[in-house]
């Protein structure tokens, strides 16, 4: 049983005069609220929503930029017993085609009572916000509600009622809303507080993470809200543009905790290397936690080497394994731990041939490095299973299955998707990994899933678009992710068979058209398109393009592209 019945009860017990959120805009501009002011503004937003007839159980979709207004509107909806969901706000980094696709799907599935957008939401995208019968579109007030105290009769919320819906990342996955109860969220947060030894009076979170993603919403909003921590946040766009501001903010506010996806551990050092930075002081940082993508020790090492001179301790670099379906974390490395997460080296051939992790020395030829994602949180269990579902012993790579006391019960309004991912109460993550000496190691994505810059991409989605080109032989397209050591992430490579050899004379033109089609359909950029003659792609016995065999053939022809990250399975 959790300490508080609901997230609202936890917020209501927060010390009113303690700082809760600082929204850092630039050197001259920032906005701050205490817990008392946050509660007051949330009640103001609740009143606004109630005026639009939002009530217990209604879904409220928020499409607002990063900042305090979206947070108070989120809690305002919860105060009424409604179920908020934050969706990505459009920005210059997201192509409109992809954005429209995700927005239309997600808003339709949620069948919201109200969709809240901000004053500056682009008019040309409004048509893609699904407004079904009974859905109202409203614009949030920039000021965060009226100035005085707001009288509001709060709804009586039950611990097992839905608190909110968070969306799992991905192109098609954007439509998968993970519905979570108050109990599930509070349970996860209590586990995290215990494992991270959080003290709300002395810890402070730094975040640029978007609130429509679990890392931003759970670790950097809900966790500070119930453990009474101060969080200093900036917008993801400001961070991308000027990543040195992350160091500046951590220094200025003496931040102790941050969560980052793997690519950020390379992005920040590489982007800031050429700039003459002041000597920021990062000695206050207890943990910068690498989660969401497979943890790569080379990325963490690069980050540490870049900023050790600023007082960043090597033991501050930590790891976890997290997913929206489990509210957030499944595992977390122990803190403090002088040298960061455990690393092991596995014999390469036995790993590739038998999926068996046989520890060898770091200098052993062909050794493959793995970085631990930590130990299981309390009341969490995992199973590693083979393709046939057999439970595998420790040290063997297989699919990771999860069971816990904060696991979601299903995707909102999608029983079809829910039934696909559960087996006897175990959630099948689709990730590959192994368990060894009480710690989980995540090896990579299952089979074909592409992880590009932190986004999960399904090759089928891209292949479908490629195959629509008249020059491409029907069904003869294979999409793969190839690791780019410069960006620390995978990039998309397309292989397509043309209808006849003569078409190869127009390869440049066809390649560009395929790129245009993919970007128009999904909003993702393709690194390379390779057109091949008829019958080049390897087929399966069922006559379909066989991805892994085609990949092997392709890499034999283009060995210069075969750069596997050291820690990833071949």
């Amino acid at each position: 049983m959790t300490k508080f019945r609901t997230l609202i009860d936890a917020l209501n017990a927060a010390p009113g005069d303690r700082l809760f959120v600082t929204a850092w805009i630039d050197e001259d501009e920032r906005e701050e609220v205490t817990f008392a002011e946050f509660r007051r503004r949330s009640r103001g937003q609740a009143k606004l929503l109630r005026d639009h007839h939002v009530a217990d159980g209604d879904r409220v979709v928020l499409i607002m930029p990063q900042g305090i207004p979206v947070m108070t509107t989120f809690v305002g909806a919860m105060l009424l017993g409604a179920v908020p969901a934050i969706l990505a706000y459009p920005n210059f980094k997201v192509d409109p085609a992809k954005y429209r696709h995700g927005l239309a799907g997600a808003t339709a599935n949620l069948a919201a009572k109200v969709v809240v957008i901000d004053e500056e939401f682009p008019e040309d995208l409004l048509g893609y916000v699904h407004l079904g019968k009974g859905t109202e579109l409203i614009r949030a007030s920039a000021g965060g509600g009226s100035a005085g105290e707001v009288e509001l009769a709060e709804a009586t919320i039950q611990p097992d009622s839905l608190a909110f819906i968070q969306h799992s990342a991905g192109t098609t996955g954007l439509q998968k809303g993970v519905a979570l109860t108050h109990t599930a969220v509070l349970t996860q947060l209590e586990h995290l507080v215990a494992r991270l030894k959080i003290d709300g009076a002395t810890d402070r979170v730094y975040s640029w993470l978007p609130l429509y993603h679990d890392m931003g919403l759970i670790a950097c909003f809900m966790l500070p809200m119930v453990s009474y921590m101060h969080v200093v946040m900036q917008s993801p766009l400001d961070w991308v543009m000027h990543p040195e501001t992350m160091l500046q903010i951590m220094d200025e506010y003496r931040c102790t905790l941050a969560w980052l996806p793997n690519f950020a551990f390379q992005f920040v050092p590489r982007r800031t290397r050429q700039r003459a930075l002041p000597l920021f002081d990062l000695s206050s940082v207890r943990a910068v936690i690498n989660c969401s993508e497979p943890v790569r020790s080379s990325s963490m090492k690069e980050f540490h080497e870049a900023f050790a001179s600023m007082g960043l301790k090597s033991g501050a670099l930590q790891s976890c394994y997290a997913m929206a379906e489990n509210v957030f974390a499944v595992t977390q490395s122990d803190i403090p731990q002088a040298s960061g997460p455990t690393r092991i080296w596995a014999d390469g051939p036995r790993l590739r041939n038998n999926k068996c992790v046989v520890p060898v020395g770091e200098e052993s030829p062909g050794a493959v490095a793995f970085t631990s994602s930590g130990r299981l949180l309390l009341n969490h269990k995992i199973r590693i299973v083979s393709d046939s579902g057999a439970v595998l012993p420790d040290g063997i790579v297989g699919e990771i299955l999860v069971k816990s006391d904060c696991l979601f019960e299903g995707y909102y309004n999608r029983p079809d998707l829910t039934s696909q991912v559960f087996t006897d109460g175990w959630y099948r993550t689709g990730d590959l990994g192994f368990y060894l000496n009480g710690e989980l190691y995540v090896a990579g994505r299952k089979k074909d899933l592409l992880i590009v810059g932190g986004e999960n991409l399904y090759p089928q989605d891209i292949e479908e678009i490629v195959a629509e080109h008249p020059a491409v032989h029907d069904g003869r397209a294979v999409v793969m992710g190839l690791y780019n050591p410069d960006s620390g992430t995978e990039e998309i490579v397309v292989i397509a068979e043309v209808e006849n050899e003569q078409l190869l004379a127009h390869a440049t033109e066809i390649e560009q058209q395929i790129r245009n089609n993919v970007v128009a359909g999904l909003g993702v950029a393709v690194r390379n398109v390779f057109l091949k003659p008829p019958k080049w792609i390897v087929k399966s016995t069922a006559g379909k393009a066989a991805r892994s065999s085609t990949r092997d053939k392709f890499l034999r022809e283009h060995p210069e592209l075969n750069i596997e990250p050291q820690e990833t399975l071949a």
Partner: protein
Amino acid sequence: MSPEAQQIAEHIALLIRKPDMVIDESTPLVSSGLIDSMALVDILLKLEDLTNMRIPPGKVQPKDMNTIALMFATAQRVGKPRK
């Protein structure tokens, strides 16, 4: 093209690894898939340097960056003079 526009055109051609490609002020860049999100960040930083403006990225949409002409118009519309 102005010298600044010429500089950004050359910068983009290098970014997309097509140094011989002719990019003029009205060449579609985003809608054609020639540049991706990470390239847009680079271009916005270059635009900040060339215009000596600070450009709040939250006020920029992809359509605002589709051509070089639009990029400079966007900098004038939303940029703040640098200190």
